[in-house]
């Protein structure tokens, strides 16, 4: 029951930034950006932290969605929404191929293979610069030309809430419970007669599709993408979102996304020392708060409540 309230509460909190549409400006712009990464963060939360699958290719699936949308729309002249859908499917297919091809390997080797894919992909984009624009990137007016920037912002907030709600829903189903079992003890899950392979395939397809779809939203919202945007560090930032926020609670990735996106914003005045502070803050959080921010904030609030009572 507690889980149910937490899921509903988290999804409702996710919709609060819809109010920023009245204010507009910087707040709205940054919130949209945070949400674009939040989708990716929840994809990592679902696949890595809740399903136990060691995948680090989030920047690749996101990039496939983004570049696929531009190439199919601008070069192949496909309708925009069809391009977005097919690009998301392509991202799911790549995630699945990554799983199938590394299924013989174990644990960290799978992580390494997908992490290498995240290093390879921006290099591939650079090498194909005649099509992709390489580091100079590609501009894309996309959906904002059709529905306007404010409507696009509302769509991003709503779709992030829908995607998150979907992840919460699936974790509550039999499939989600089996994925949790797999993450806790894969061999034991197999031993009780469950076909874990089938569930892992499903987890990769879902994650790939939603991450790719997040990429299609990214390029529509920012209007630009280059190989710099999808460097290997992007995948690390995405992975940091549930890790820093706290993967055991449903709202952890929200805190993580705020942290990962807003800390660099706060460090702009000390740009020269940015990486030092950024690395130190991450180290401190990981070492001192291994469960992430959310459970510790929960404990702190509990203590404050007790004092007042």
């Amino acid at each position: 029951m507690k889980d149910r309230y937490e899921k509903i509460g988290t999804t409702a909190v996710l919709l609060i930034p819809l109010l920023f549409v009245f204010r507009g400006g910087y707040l709205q712009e940054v919130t949209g950006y945070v949400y674009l990464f939040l989708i990716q963060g929840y994809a990592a939360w679902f696949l890595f932290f809740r399903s136990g699958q060691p995948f680090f290719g989030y920047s690749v699936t996101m990039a496939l969605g983004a570049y696929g949308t531009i190439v199919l729309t601008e070069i192949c002249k496909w309708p925009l929404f069809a391009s977005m859908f097919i690009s998301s499917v392509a991202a799911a297919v790549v995630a699945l191929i990554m799983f199938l091809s590394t299924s013989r390997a174990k644990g960290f080797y799978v992580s390494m293979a997908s992490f290498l894919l995240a290093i390879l992909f921006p290099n591939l984009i650079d090498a194909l610069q005649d099509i992709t624009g390489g580091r100079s990137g590609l501009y894309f007016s996309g959906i904002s030309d059709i529905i306007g920037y404010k409507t696009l912002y509302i769509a991003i907030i709503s779709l992030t809430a829908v995607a998150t709600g979907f992840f919460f829903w699936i974790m509550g189903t039999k499939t989600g419970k089996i994925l949790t079992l797999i993450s806790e003890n894969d061999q034991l899950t197999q031993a009780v007669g469950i076909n874990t392979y089938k569930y892992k395939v499903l987890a990769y397809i879902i994650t790939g599709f939603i991450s790719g779809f997040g990429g299609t939203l990214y390029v529509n919202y920012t209007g630009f993408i280059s190989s710099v945007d999808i460097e290997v560090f992007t995948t690390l930032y995405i992975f940091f979102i549930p890790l820093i926020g706290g993967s055991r609670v449903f709202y952890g990735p929200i805190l993580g996304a705020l942290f990962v996106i807003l800390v660099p914003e706060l460090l702009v005045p000390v740009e020269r020392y940015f990486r030092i502070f950024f690395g130190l803050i991450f180290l401190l959080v990981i070492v001192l708060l291994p469960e992430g921010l959310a459970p510790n904030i929960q404990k702190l609030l509990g203590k404050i409540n007790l004092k007042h009572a």
Partner: protein
Amino acid sequence: MILNGIITGLIIGGILSLPVLGVAVIYGITGIPNFAIGVIGVFGGFLTWYFLSFNMGIAVLVGVAVCFVVGYVLQRILLTPISERGGDSTLFFIITISVGFVFEGLIRAIFPRPNISLALPRIGTIDIAGVTVEGFKIIALIFAIGTLIVIRLAEEHTEVGKSWQATSQNLKLAKFLGINTNQVFSIASGIGCALACIGAIFWGALYNLQLSSGWELGFLGFIIAVVGGIGNIWGGIISALIIGMVMSFSGYLLGGMWQSVILYFIVILVLIISPKGILGSERSL
């Protein structure tokens, strides 16, 4: 062209084998994948560059010594305590990446230039079957092979080396025998970072060092070690030479843009086909 490609490949592979050796030593003994090793090594390379105007020997010594101390302290105060608390490979991956961020930031904050070339003395050229090669490159290759032999011999024939072997093979038994395993881990980490620094110095003298070089060297070092069989020193060296060849020939045939693409593609294929690397891992990840 083929001979030129082979020689360039051997030299790139030889230089890359130093950070690979660093990764292999650290992982082989501590069991911890340290992704910050390249950035720490490049930090040492920048320090060497800074002190070069005083004296070359002192400059190299300062860079290598600082990297050794950084590796030693990092292992002592951060990585070993977390390992004792049951940290897994993924946690170490994230922690060492964060450490790498700190050292990349230090390079940016301390040094006035983000792109340097180390002006070490050149010793003319050598002609090998009609191909002219810089003498310095040959020295880099000989040094890399020499370092490997010294480490291998030290491991087999010295007390310290034997305590390394014991610690990597059976930690509990090593502790029971009275070996100070924390000290062994810290020294291994220090040596690994010092080796990465020497690799970075050679790289900086032959090509150049940038802010991003640390990540490139570190990731390359790690993936080469994985391809060779992580923790397996000989596998790492063979892998470094093969990867050096791949980089050299793909650069010649397809241009620099495709070099990394071909390299990472082959490495991913190796991981898919033979997840434990060419010669097999001496530890499991």
